[in-house]
């Protein structure tokens, strides 16, 4: 295979669209993350362009795999594309980054959370959160809105907490009411934020059992390292985070593109 051949994976998520382009040697030559917005095709095109270092690179793309919630809404005229679910792409990336290891992947995205298990080099199971937004990025966005702070400030606030507030509700809306109660009780903002992070982790821990190497991925992990600490605290084991957790699924899609894996 010529060295200049390129392969791209695009993960169109509910909040962000991520693209990763690799060469035939599976080296990442570029990646990008942009807001998905409402025009998913536009987001995908933009993410693709931004993942390439030179304009000429686009002509060298031999195949693309599109994944994520918007995978069926996008197509490219000049590039062979196929789509595979984000669950399979995540598993693919895990097998590449952690070869020959049994791994439990925890992907926390904007609108859902997933637990994917790799056993003996194969995906053995997966589970997603139920319909409710508890345990997803949406929960954090709601929290920031309620506290009238930017969601980008949450992680630093969470690190300052010494006494996490108790937020036990399953429901994002009810959790908002609980936060109001905590405010009335005089709880510190950082403690409420940390309490909300705890709430997310607890919801995720209910989805499945956790064993072997536990790997956290997804946009929520990329921007909220506090969650990793809480997972370590509650699971009482070290947690792995890949170098680019938000683009992990897009990397898996790019690997599928390279292998020509299709359905």
């Amino acid at each position: 295979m010529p060295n200049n051949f390129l392969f791209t994976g695009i993960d169109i998520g509910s909040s962000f669209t991520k693209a990763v382009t690799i060469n035939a040697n599976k080296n990442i030559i570029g990646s990008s993350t942009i807001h998905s917005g409402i025009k998913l095709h536009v987001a995908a095109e933009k993410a693709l362009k931004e993942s390439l270092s030179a304009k000429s690179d686009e002509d060298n793309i031999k195949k693309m795999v599109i994944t994520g919630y918007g995978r069926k809404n996008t197509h490219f005229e000049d590039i062979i594309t196929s789509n595979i679910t984000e669950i399979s792409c995540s598993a693919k990336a895990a097998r590449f980054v952690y070869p020959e290891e049994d791994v439990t992947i925890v992907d926390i995205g904007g609108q859902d959370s997933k637990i994917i298990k790799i056993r003996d080099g194969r995906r053995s199971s997966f589970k997603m959160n139920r319909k409710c937004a508890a345990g997803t990025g949406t929960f954090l966005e709601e929290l920031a809105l309620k506290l009238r702070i930017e969601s980008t400030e949450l992680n630093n606030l969470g690190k300052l907490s010494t006494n996490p507030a108790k937020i036990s509700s399953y429901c994002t809306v009810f959790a908002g009411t609980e936060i109001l109660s905590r405010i009335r009780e005089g709880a510190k903002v950082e403690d409420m934020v940390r309490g909300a992070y705890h709430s997310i982790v607890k919801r995720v821990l209910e989805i499945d059992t956790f064993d072997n190497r536990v790997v956290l991925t997804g946009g929520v992990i990329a921007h909220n390292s506090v969650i990793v600490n809480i997972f370590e605290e509650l699971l009482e084991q070290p947690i792995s985070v890949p170098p680019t957790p938000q683009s992990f699924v897009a990397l898996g899609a790019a690997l599928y593109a390279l292998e020509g894996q299709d359905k």
Partner: protein
Amino acid sequence: MQPNYYKKLVSIFIPNTLIQNFDDRIEMTQENQIKSVHELKKIATDYYQNLDEASKDPHKKVAWCSSVGPAELLLAFDFNVYYPENHTAILGASRSANKYIPLAVAQGYSPEICSYLTSDIGAYLKNETGLQRAYGIEKVPKPDVLIFNTNQCRDVQDWFNYYAREFQVPILGVNSPTFIDELSNTHFKTVEEQLKDIAETLEKITDQSFERKKLENKLQLSLECSNKWNSVLETASSIPSPLTFFDGCIHMLPAVVLRGTQIAVDYYNMLEQELKLRIENGIAAVAEESFRCFWEGMPIWGKLRALSNQFSELKTCIVASTYCNSWIFSDFNPQEPFRSMAKAYTELFINRSESSKEKYLKKMVDKFSIDGMIYHNARTCPNNSNTNYGLPKRLENLTGIPSLQIDADLNDLNVYSEEQTKTNIEAFIEQLAGI
């Protein structure tokens, strides 16, 4: 354009006006059609027309019966038997249930209880019926008596009690022993006694003597119907399968509403022959069938078409289900009518213990060469959802067959997440394909 097979199927439950709005994304070829569906449509129309006429004729009697209630007993007393569950499935399949559920909720029926109940009562409160659009019938037939069996859940009892109060008619019920592992004569005896009491009460209500011969005859016909329905469903053990679970949800109608009649027996004779012919000719229900899955739990009535299409696109045939199997009553014995009815109606899968269900499902996995289990966790039907006490994981360990849980509902589509369900199904089939 080739006729759309699925359109024909759902037309039994769904009025033509809605069918016209269905997109034609999946067109099945002429040879894929189960042709018996034309006869089924006629049978369904006749059944409801007869009920409508009976409800208007002062010399005829109408009884309402829960779907796995003692229908044969009612037939032996010459009742025309109406099954509210079939009516509410029509509301679900035509996606009108959510229009009616809030009306029942406003009357104090929780949105968390059976959405069959809430949509049916809601439609009644609105003075509407699914039969109007499907069969041109203005009202559900007024009952002279209501009869339920708690072998499926407690909700049927409260559902029927609503109508007993509303119509001021007698209500009779069988309270079955539930969640039993190994059923014994003690269990059967208690049900048998209740059935005999019901027969006595029906004598008083109808002013008609109980005729054992008549019951034996109805039971014989029900047994034949059940055996034939079983044979129909077992054709799906062929690879590829000549029918899907989604077909079964439509073709089960005679087993539900016409068991105890020759019409049902004749229909399943015809259907079985057709399916056997399909097997001989290698006609698959799902073209290029690559994976075979089992559906555990209730159908998602409003999404039958969407799910059928998605699985077809994924070359996956849902070959069997606990739901369609619910109307197999192999233990009916005309020589022992009361005891055998007690046995057959108490042994139902839905009415049994977790370990009994596990054994049954293991058998199904082997019998139908299952690649994957799909569990429908129906929000308002915990009694017929088997995802809440760890069964899927235990069965996975026992069989090595992976499983998927779909969180949805039988009628309430407000608790259904379309995108999440689609992705879950697609990812599951990718898993089976080793992707």
